[in-house]
């Protein structure tokens, strides 16, 4: 059976939790780039990546419910 929900869930790209965060020191020079806020950086992502993050957040909360 052709199930759109099944296809959508299977093609969902969840963010990798183990991805190493950039540990660069912020530069103090005048022309240095400002560090982006978290909200702004999420909105810069592609819509499907943003959806993946939202799903990961809700799933994390759901797993928290399961584990008590």
């Amino acid at each position, binding site marked *: 059976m052709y*199930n759109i*929900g*099944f296809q959508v*869930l299977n093609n*969902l790209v969840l963010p990798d939790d183990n991805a190493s965060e950039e540990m660069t020191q912020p530069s103090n020079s005048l022309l240095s780039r400002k560090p982006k806020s978290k909200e702004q950086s999420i909105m810069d992502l592609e819509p499907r990546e943003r*959806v993946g993050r*939202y799903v990961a957040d*809700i799933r994390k909360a*759901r797993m928290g*419910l399961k584990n008590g």
Partner: protein
Amino acid sequence: MVDIPSPSFDRPIAGQSLTAELGNRPWQQPPQYATVEEALDYYVPRLANPEFTENLFDVMETGIPLTTIANAMQSAGVMEGKHTIDVGLLIMPVLIETMAYLAEESDIEYVEGSNITTDPDKPSDSRIARAIAMVRKEQGEEPKMEDMPVPEEQEVPQEVTGGLMSRRSADGV
């Protein structure tokens, strides 16, 4: 057994989309919520509404998968002109996950619909049909042309036409 596609009559009539003036339908207008976030701001508070969740849990307990429920919800949103199909498909995983969260919070059993299990020991119908065809071929059980009944030719009585332009018969009549 091989699946033979059966005709579906639950479809719009050809040309039905042209029976209304272009732009009169909600989905032919610009969507009310253009982004994923705007659409989620519309859906998530509704999902959390106690009146809605009560009905939602009833549907979940009947065994309808969350993927089907989410698809119905977003299709209705598209038809009402709330968002586009693209945004609807994008928000589906969030809707499914939110419904799963609400169900687990209230200890409701649900079917997610994301894992279609297939038994590796059970061959598919098409494979069975191919195997049967191969066995029949090896055993020579295929129906041969000479065995097929041939319908007898029947003489069709020719009508005698009396028109000026009609073709003359061999008798010259």
